[in-house]
């Protein structure tokens, strides 16, 4: 058995290799954080931090971001849209998944087949006709065009259908005998049981909504209604910002922070969801 003679060199080597790889991977993010605090002169003259002149580090980029651009407005727009969309899509998907998993009703088969067929369909094929529809509804430049289609997810229904299948029928029947209404069967009994799945899907939906670019880019025209991805991408295109990369980096850094926070809150569920529900599918 090799386990008997623990090779200290092999273990140290393993840690060194993994740590170096991790460092390489997060270098762009480290660079981003450094760039956000550097002034324009130091941005490219020092690869990361100007060690000799730590007093050069500055919050000017953030100040200018607040002063010259509607950045915090975009941030507020993004937070509002993403939260609303995530809550709605998780609620509706879990309701639908519960219905498909725990009831036998007319049309159930058809619904399952229909959704199965649309799973692999690239959503981009819908862009032109969605644009036409939204245009005729008078929803151009309005958040309804983003939130209403965004509160539906076939993938979410599938995930919840799979997870809710594990809720024991006996439990539901016992609750019914005790006078529990159908809606409480979903909310108070089934949802807590599929908590890991809920956490994983919440994280996925949040990520998707927060980072969404193409559809909002088509629908939103007024710069004050922009979300962070569209706003920052538009800054990159402006000629005067060629020299102000620091501001752009400060904005990008702030745009990533909320996602990291949400990830830390939900990461246990996410990992659990990965190894239970999502992989079986």
């Amino acid at each position, binding site marked *: 058995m090799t386990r008997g003679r623990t090779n200290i060199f092999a273990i140290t080597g393993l840690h060194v290799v993994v740590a170096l790889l991790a460092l390489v991977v997060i270098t762009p*993010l480290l660079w981003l954080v450094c760039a956000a605090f550097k002034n324009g002169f130091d941005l490219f003259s020092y690869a990361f931090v100007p060690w000799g002149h730590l007093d050069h580090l500055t919050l000017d980029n953030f100040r200018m971001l607040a002063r010259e651009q509607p950045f915090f407005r975009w941030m507020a727009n993004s937070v509002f849209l993403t939260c609303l969309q995530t809550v709605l899509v998780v609620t509706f998907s879990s309701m639908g998944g519960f219905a498909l998993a725990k009831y036998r009703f007319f049309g159930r088969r058809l619904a399952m087949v229909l959704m199965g067929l649309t799973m692999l369909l690239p959503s981009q094929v819908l*862009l032109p006709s969605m644009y036409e529809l939204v245009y005729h509804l008078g929803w151009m430049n309005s958040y309804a065009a983003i939130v209403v289609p965004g509160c539906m997810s076939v993938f979410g229904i599938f995930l919840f259908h799979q997870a809710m299948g594990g809720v024991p029928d006996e439990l539901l029947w016992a609750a019914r005998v005790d006078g529990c209404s159908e809606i409480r069967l979903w909310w108070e009994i089934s949802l807590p049981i599929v908590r890991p799945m809920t956490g994983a899907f919440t994280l996925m939906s949040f990520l998707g909504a927060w980072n969404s670019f193409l559809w909002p880019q088509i629908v939103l025209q007024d710069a004050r209604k922009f979300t962070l991805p569209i706003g920052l991408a538009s800054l990159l295109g402006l000629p005067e910002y060629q020299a102000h990369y620091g501001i752009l980096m400060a904005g990008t850094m702030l745009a990533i922070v909320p996602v990291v926070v949400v990830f830390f809150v939900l990461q246990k569920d996410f990992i659990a969801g990965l*190894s239970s529900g999502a992989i079986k599918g």
Partner: protein
Amino acid sequence: MAQRTWAAQQRWAPYLFLLPFGAVFAVFFAYPLGRSLVLSLYNTAGPRAQRFVGLHNYRFLLTDRVFWLACANTVAYTIAFLIIQIPIALGLALLLNNPRLRARNIFRFCFFSTYLVGQVFVAVVFAILLDGQQGLLGQAMRWFGLPAVDFLGDPRFALSGVLLAGVWLATGFGMIYLLAALQAVDQELYEAADVDGAGKWSRFIHITLPGVLPVLLFLVLVGTVGGFQLFELPYVLFQGAGPNYSVLTIVMYLFMTGFEGGNLGYASAIGWMLVLLIAIFSLGQVWILRRVVK
């Protein structure tokens, strides 16, 4: 009486639960899907001016050299992406799965963290990192004595620049799935292999690889579908199609014809070609891989 309301409640509950989803699905998925088939038979200038042209859009697509260029770029990206991403993700997962590794959760988070950064934000950062003259990558390459490559200006390297960003973004995602799969592999198999005196390589081939195969197939499929839908990364990185259309993708061409050019009909036809290509590639992969497994 109570019995009856009870039964009625149970009978109608599933429909009510599915109502919000179903309503949105019908109006914002099923209808646009059918409508886009119809729309692809029209030439349009914005949502108002439309002219029926039959199958002309599809015929034109077959001879549209820009479209085929977009296809070539997209397919090249997707294949290169899979060839690079999957082995790296598997290698990282194997390293992290070593039982003697301390602080596994911290490392796992480091590798996965890139996936939390949205494509647009990755593109904004890489637009500056890849800058030929001043960017960090150029500086690092010069430091190692390599010739600086202009990823953003040279059409020969533009797609590699996108690839670099794409692999950086998604490898941690693959790793986290593979790690979960590795941890689910039955440990008794390894102990049995130890008893049989199997070497490291044969353990990898005969136990580890079959154990993670479903996840590998899943990642190939996800990577293919995702690769074919590539848009944000190159579009933001190059503020368009790049030098000589070198990073033009299918979705970018759809976006440009439909929303910058205003021809929603032709854009719909491009969309349906994308559907067709994804169907062919993903079903083909499933078919080939099934045979390989058998």
